[in-house]
Each structure stands twice: as structure tokens, then as C-alpha cells.
């Protein structure tokens, strides 16, 4: 074995034992420093003739490069180990909860109003509004419900004036009248809003939300009404081919009038919507009564259309399995 091979072997043996950057630096000095083994070999160069010099310098440089490369690799290795060690020391319990923050929420009724609005927006309806305080005329008379009509008994009305001319609207239907009186046909609107009736028990709250729909144009028939509501119900409950039926009913402001039921069944005390042999009433609708069009200055010979109204709170309860909406007034819950 030549002197150079010995040096190399010696280096490799020592390198393998090195653990720290400091030792590595010392090793570098030992071989490549001023009096290092390799440097000292260079000093021997003067003893050789030209050919030997050439030969020797090639070998020597090879060894020097190899040592340098090994040192640099070892340095990277040591640095990597050091980082890994540092990171493993820095480990924390990632399952700890995040910093606390108050979590906001939209009320399910608001949520459902948005859902319904976007479904009807898709088929071209705009959102209309009307005031909560209404005239007796807009709430009843213009809607073909004259003063001595027994249908008025079905609406227990809150009054604000002794003469009963000013009241809290009992339904969102007066928005139909306001919309038609201030605009020109065609009309295609929905009107969600607060409505009021002065009976209150487990199933009736004195305030609830309704959504009114109105589509008046020249050739709108009951088939369009059925199509519109069928589309809405499928989209809202996210059930294709949901079981639905139209059942004749009576509202003074529509003729013919219908109530719409959807099929459901109960399994293990849970309600399943969409099929089954039970029926659940979810909304009322019909063709706008010619008297209502006339009362809104619309030519009933030229224009016709349909209207519908639904209870939003009930739809929210059905869709999200809520038993009593009043529980939402107890807002905070644990967990």
C-alpha cells in the first residue's frame, strides 16, 4: 500500500467516527491544514523528477478532492441530523384545541329564506317586500276578502287602531297587491317576510314567516303552477321525484285554490320526507282571482297567473328536523 492509500484509509476510518461539526473541522485540519497529512505530501513534491511529479500530483489531487467531497457530504449529514434532532425536540401536541373564538351562526329561518330565494332566483323570480304594518284594505279587501267574509275569522288579527283599519299583516299576500299596484305586468316575484296572528300555543306562534309567490303574465296556467311548485319542492328537499299532490282548497284570493301535500313516512320516530303513505301539507296556492287582479288595476281578461304562500318556519323545521322553533330563542347550547 502506498503512502497515499494509507492516508486515505486513515481519513475514511476517522471520518466514520465523526459526530459533530467541531470534530469534522478538526479532521479537516488534520488532513488538509497547514501541517496536515495531505499538505505534507505536497511538500514532498520537490523530491521527484518531472514525470514523477506529474504522476504524484494527479494522485495527490485525487485524494484531496475525495477528502474534500467526503468532508462536505459529512457536513451536510451532520447538519441534517442536527435539524432533525432540533425539530424532534420542538414537537407539540397538535390535538390541543385552537385558540378560542366566538362562533357566529345564521338562524335556520334566515338560512331557509336564502335557500328558497336562490331556488326561485334560478327560475327568474325577484324578491319583493312589503311593510309589516298593513292597511286592512291591502291585507283583506283587495285580496277579495270583504269585511263580513268568514275567511277573516281564520286570521286572528292584531290591530293597531280602534277602527281596525291598521293591522299587522296576517300573511305576505298584501305584497301581491303592492307589487301589482306599483308595477306593470308581467310579475314574477317572491316575498318572504314576517307575519302575525294573535293565537299562540304549542303549534302556533304569534309571529311566523311566510313566503309569497306571484307569477302573472298572459298565458300562465295551472300547469305552470304545478311545474313551478314541483320544481321548488324537489330542489328544496333535495329529493328527486318527491311524492306531491295538489288538493282542492279555498282561499278568497285564488280560484281555483289548492293545498299542496308531500308524502312522508315515520320510522323509529323520525320523519322521512319524499315517499310513504302519509301526507303533509306544506303550502297553499292557486290561480290569482280575477277580483284581485281588478283590485290591483290589472286587466283580468288579458292577464292571468298564479300565487302561492308557504310557512317558512315549518319548512325549516321539516328540512332540518327541528321540533320547536321557539327553542331557537334559547340560543346558546353546550357543545
Amino acid at each position: 500500500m502506498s503512502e497515499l492509500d494509507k492516508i486515505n484509509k486513515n481519513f475514511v476510518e476517522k471520518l466514520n467516527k465523526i459526530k459533530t461539526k467541531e470534530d469534522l473541522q478538526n479532521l479537516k485540519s488534520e488532513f488538509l491544514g497547514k501541517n496536515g497529512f495531505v499538505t505534507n505530501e505536497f511538500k514532498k513534491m520537490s523530491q521527484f523528477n518531472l514525470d514523477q511529479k506529474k504522476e504524484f500530483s494527479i494522485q495527490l489531487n485525487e485524494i484531496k478532492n475525495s477528502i474534500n467531497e467526503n468532508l462536505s457530504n459529512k457536513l451536510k449529514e451532520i447538519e441534517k441530523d442536527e435539524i432533525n434532532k432540533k425539530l424532534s425536540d420542538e414537537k407539540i401536541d397538535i390535538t390541543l384545541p385552537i385558540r378560542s373564538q366566538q362562533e357566529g351562526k345564521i338562524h335556520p329561518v334566515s338560512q331557509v329564506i336564502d335557500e328558497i330565494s336562490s331556488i326561485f332566483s334560478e327560475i327568474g323570480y325577484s324578491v319583493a317586500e312589503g311593510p309589516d304594518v298593513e292597511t286592512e284594505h291591502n291585507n283583506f279587501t283587495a285580496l277579495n276578502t270583504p269585511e263580513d267574509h268568514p275567511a277573516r275569522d281564520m286570521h286572528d288579527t292584531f290591530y293597531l287602531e280602534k277602527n281596525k283599519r291598521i293591522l299587522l299583516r296576517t300573511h305576505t299576500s298584501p305584497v301581491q297587491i303592492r307589487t301589482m299596484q306599483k308595477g306593470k305586468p308581467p310579475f314574477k316575484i317572491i316575498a318572504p317576510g314576517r307575519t302575525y296572528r294573535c293565537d299562540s300555543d304549542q303549534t302556533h306562534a304569534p309571529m311566523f314567516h311566510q313566503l309569497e309567490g306571484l307569477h302573472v303574465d298572459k298565458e300562465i296556467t295551472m300547469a305552470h303552477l304545478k311545474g313551478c311548485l314541483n320544481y321548488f319542492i324537489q330542489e328544496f328537499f333535495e329529493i328527486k321525484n318527491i311524492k306531491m299532490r295538489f288538493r282542492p282548497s279555498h282561499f278568497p284570493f285564488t280560484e281555483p285554490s289548492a293545498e299542496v301535500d308531500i308524502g312522508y313516512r315515520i320510522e323509529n320516530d323520525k320523519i322521512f320526507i319524499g315517499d310513504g303513505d302519509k301526507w303533509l301539507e306544506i303550502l297553499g296556492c292557486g290561480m290569482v282571482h280575477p277580483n284581485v287582479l281588478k283590485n290591483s288595476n290589472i286587466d283580468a281578461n288579458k292577464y292571468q297567473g298564479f300565487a302561492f304562500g308557504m310557512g317558512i318556519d315549518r319548512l325549516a323545521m321539516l328540512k332540518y328536523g327541528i321540533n320547536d322553533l321557539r327553542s331557537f330563542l334559547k340560543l346558546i347550547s353546550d357543545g
Partner: protein
Amino acid sequence: MILTLSWLKKHLKTPANLNKIIDKLTNIGLEVENIKNVNNASELFKIAKVVKVEKHPNADKLKICDVLVSKDEIKKVVCGADNVRPDLYTVHASPGAIIPKSKLKLKIAKIRGVESFGMLCSESELNISNESAGIIDLKKNSNDVGKSFFRDKDEKIVEISVTPNRPDCLGIRGIARDLSAAGLGSLIDIKKISFKQKKPQNIKVSISKDRGQGCLSFGSCLIKNIKNTESPKWLKDKIISLGLKPISAIVDITNYVMFDLNRPLHAYDADKIDNEIIVRNSRKNETFDALDEKKYNLEGGMCVITDRSGVLGLGGVIGGKRSGTELETKNIFLESAYFLPSSVRKTSKALNIDTDAKFRFERGIDPNSIEEGLKVATDLILNICGGEASKFQITGKKNFNKKKIELSLNKFKKTIGFSITANETKKILLALGFKIKTKKSSLTLEIPSWRPDINQEIDIIEELIRIKGFDKIETIAPNKIRERETLTFPQRLFHLSQRAISNQGYLEAITWSFTDKKIDTLFNPGEKPLTILNPISTDLDVLRRSIFSNLIYYLKKNQDRGYQDISIFEIGPTFYGKNPGEQEIVIGGLRSGKFNKKSWSEKTRGVDVFDVKADVLQCLKELGLNEKQFNVNADSKNYYHPGRSGSVVKENKTLAFFGEIHPTIISKMDLKEKNIYGFEIYLNNIPLQEKKLRLLKGNFKVSDFQKSERDFAFILNKDYKVGNLKNLIRDVNPSVIKFVSIFDVFEGENLPDGKKSVAINVTIQSDEKTLSDNDLNQICKSIIKIVQQKTGGSIRS
């Protein structure tokens, strides 16, 4: 309205079973609401025979009876009735039976030490009559023992919800007619009735010509020498199935005819009528003792049936006590009249009386049914009670004209969307009782007098599709075309602010629009509350004038449940007047307790005014307003803490208030956690933007050049509003001063009295070049100069 299959079959010849009928009823608009049994577990009530009666050893008034409850089964039953005797046939209720009157379930029980197997029943206990003196005395024989006492034990009672437009279906016959039109059988003609009517009705009847006379026609019959009695069983069963109590043959017959033919009648004891009948308007302060045992003070102008001594009855509403029939009544004056719906409605509303007759008259009775009603009822009375009937007398209008409507044959398709043939149209309408004259492209229809709801062509269309079936209507899918925007700008503001505030960590509440006057006044002192005339309760008696009125109440409710750290908001109307439209949309929020929960990583801190200020500013930002467009100042409302509240103003309009809720309110409301802050944003004051929302925000620009930051510290007067500094500094050179933040404010230490130190960080960046040191120094000099000028303060060191 109530229906039984056996009763229906009196009018409808049909092979259909009850289920088929129930389905059809719902499909033609007579919604079946409920189906129930006449008497639950009625087989537990049996005809029994008392065999032996012994004295109870431990009680003087009680007896121990051996009762034959079936052919060969004798049971011991303890009974207290005086009339119990051997060989008495009566009704025995077995253990398990529920007594109709008390609704109690019978058990085998020891009565004073002797075991009794069930009980023997009185009529009162079975809700058959008020007779409670003794147990029922049945005229039966031993073959009947063990049979169920309630006949038709499988008879189901069908409850139908009849819409107010269909008074004709408040009688079984009307329902039968609809079913026959819908193809479920044929309507049976009312059998021809004839009886002797020799003498004229000799009680004088007159209808006064008062203004607004509510009675148009008054039919009467005098029936003499009757023997009023208990009704026969078939009639009692019918009355019981209606949920009514049998009273006497006369009363039961009038009720029966009312439910059978929808023809209300009234029977007077003829001997109690003072000379003559006068139908007139009531006079103010006339009084009247009604059959419901109440005394009514009448207003003027109500339609009353009177005699010379005063009021006998309220026309179409209720009869009076003075002329009521009793079992001893010998002579009957029978009334069958037509009262106007508006008159009946007015009277019953004013006096708050609800009766079956009123319910029918106010919806509209067939005016042409006066004579038929008299005929059917008189015939029944003669058969059950005997006596002699007078001729019928009709006072007032004798004939009511029938309405005529022209039906264009293409109207159905135009409205419903598919065609129906002329033949089918005619078939349906004929079955419903219309008379038809056929023309080339239309039908002239004569409307049956029992259908007050049919007034125009569209009402005929409704009849046709109702009978034809709503399931035949096609379903045309809607077009997915949108020609107008879904939401208007204010509607969009509503949604954006709702979401912005929810994102700030608030839970949305939806509370009622009315509230407690006491709470509402805390937020609106000195102003007149908006009272509701008929509130559901005294603590919900006014329209809310503040979004806080209910919100603080529910904050308290939640605090009372043990939650202190709460953030809730509501968006909705508040009212400033009682006229339609005197309302505005407000979004308001309340935060109480700590801002954050206890956590492993941070300390908790209480909510403070800068939290609600941040909520307001963030919300306004989402609504398209940046801080340059409004001012924040210390003015606020008196329900906020005067030193820790403020408002956001733009061009003299208040966009929002925020601050700590006034401690007086917190103590008046007795809130447990007293650290409460709130805000209100008035959406109606947000300037209406003609532009699209996306255009409201400035163009999105990013500068490619180096930014620089510089810190300044100024000594300012203590009461200087630091909020102004931001805009002041920005305005020095808006194109390069991108951001101003205030990072330290303090007083005292080595500062002079009445002064404070404010430290500011300014971010400077040009969109065009990298600013040189010289540029930056120039800008900083300008900032210092302007701040010193405008605030009277000085730069520190």
C-alpha cells in the same frame, strides 16, 4: 262537519267503502281531518239484567247486585242507584271501559269492602242525556242481554274540514251530492212527504221594514197537541255521533235536520209566545236571556225575533230561554227562515256567540230550502211526538232568483292548461245541481241556490277541475331564465350585513316584532309607545321601537341559564310609527361577558367598546364603505354609557351607534353579567348605490415597489380625538400614504398634565417608483408639520 257512512248512505247510493269515500272527499276539496270511533271500546258497554239485589253490609245507600252480563255469566256489581231492582234491564260497563262523561277507566275495585265488577250506568254517565237520578231503565228482554249497548259499534266518525265557501257541505246531503258528481254513486231523491195540514198557522208573523233588516223570509208551522219525549234510539244515535247530547225529540229533530240538509230550524213553545211574532231590529239596551244561560245586552240594529213582551231570539244565532221547549211543551211554533250572512255575522261577533246555526247562516244557507226544512221536520215531529200541523206560512220573500253565469267552453283550457269536453262539463255540472242551456261555444248556467260561493265564470272552472281531479293537471317545468336581478340593493345590504356580523362571531336571533312596553321604553324614553290593541299578553303589548328591546330580554334569558359570554344579533324591522311603512331595517348586536373563552394558550379578557366598534366598521366595510367615507364621533344615544360609546356618521346621517349599554338599564333588567356592549346599524341610512356592488370597491391594485414604514410620537391634548389622526395623516399625501396605525397611547409618566402621547406607524409606498430617502424625509416632514398645525400638538423628541 261530521259524517258517518250510514248517514251518508241515506243520501248516496254507492257501492264504495269508507276508505274509498275518504280518499275521494279529500280529492274534491272536502279534506278529511280525522277518523274516529263513536265510543272507544264501546263493546265494554253491554245490555245486562239485574237478577238479585242485596243490601251492602257496610253502607246504607249501596246495594250488591247479581247482574247477568251475558247469557250465562253473573257478576257481583255494587250500585247506589235508587231504581235498581231485580228484573231491571240496564247498561253494564265492564272493567276497562272508559266512562264517556268522566273519561275515567273502570277497574275492578272494592267498594266499602265488597268487590264490584264494573258498574251499572246512568244516561248522564254515558253522555246520552242529563238524566243522572238512576241507572238506565231499558225496555228489553232476555234475548238482548250481553249485546253491545252502543249500536253501530264499528261506525266510524269522519271529521271533514269544510272551507268557508262551501256552506252546502255543512249538511250530509251536500257532501253526498259532491260525491255523486265525482262518480262515487248516485244522489237519492228526497222521499215525497205528505201529512195532513188542515188549519192555517194562526200566530201572526211580520217582518218589520227596519233599515238593514237581516231577515228576508220567515217560514213557520204551528204543531199542536204534541207529546214531547225522549228521542227514539236511531235519532239519539245520530245526535250522539255528531258529538251532541240528545235533549228531547223536538230539539233533536231540529238539530238532525240542520246537519242532514244544512237547514237550521228553531222550535218555540207556542204557548209562551205573547200574541204575535215580529222580526225587527233590536233597540239599544234591550236585554235577552239566551239558551246558553247567558244574558245579553243588545246593541241597536241586530236582527231579533220578538213578541209583544220582548226578544225571543237572535235571528240565525241563538234562541231564547223564555220560549224554549221542554218535555211538557204541548204546542210547537217551528221557524225556518233566511237570515243574511252579514247580519248574523255582525250580531254574533258583537256578542261573541258561536252556534251551529250561526256558523251556517253566516256562510250562506239555501234561501229556497225554507219550505223543505219545515216539511221534513214537521213530518218527523208528527211521527215521533204526534200532534196536528198547521199549513206552512211564509212571510217575506217567497222566491229567490237564481244567479246566471255564462261559461265559455275554452275558458277551462285557458286557465287549467288542458281541455275538457262539453259533454263532461255538462255531466259534472248537472250532477252538482246546475241547470244548463247549451249554446254554440258557451253554456248558460243557472246556479243552484245552495251555492252562494259561485259568482263568476272562474268559480265554474274551479268546480270542474275539483271534480275532474287536480291530479289530471299537467306539470310544465319552469324556464330557467332570469330577466331581472333577484335582489335589490337594500336587500343585498340585508344579506351582506347579516353575514358580516355572523362572521364577527354573533349568533343570529329572530325575535318577535312586538315586545314589552317596559323594556321598549328603556331604549326610547319619553316617546309614545306603539301600542297593539289586542296583544296576546300584557308583556308583548307594543311594536318594538328598538332592536335591543327583545334582544336584551333574550340575552338575559340566556344569562339566567348560566351563560355569560354571549354574542347575539338580530336583523329586522323596528318601528317609528303606526302607519304602513313607518319601519326601518336595523341590525343590532349585543356582546356580554368575556370576549374569549378560557384557553390553554391565551388569557381571557372582557368584551370592550373596541370589539363592538370593530364589528360595526367591519360590517360597514363589507357593505362597501371604507373609513374615509364616514366619521366616528362620541355622540350616541342615552341608553349607552356616555363615556364609552359613539356613532358612525356620514353626511349628517347616523349609520350606526355602538358602545357599552347604560348601567341603569343593566340594573333595571337585573342582568347577571353586567359587562354588556352593543351596536345598531341603520341599513336604511346606508347611501343607496346606483352602481353595482362590485364597482363600489376601488380597483384592485398592487404596487411593485418597496414599501417603507416610519414611526412618529406626538404629544397631544388629552381630549384630542385620536380617531381623526388617521384621516389627517392619510390626507397629507393619499397616493403614497397607504396605511396609518396607532400603536400606543398613554398619559402621565413624564408627560405634562393634560397631555397624552400617541404613537403612530405610517406605511409609505408609491405605485410608480421606489421612494428615495429624500422623498421619504419630505413626506415625514409634511406629516409632522400638518399634524402639529391641525392638532396643536408637537412631535416628541
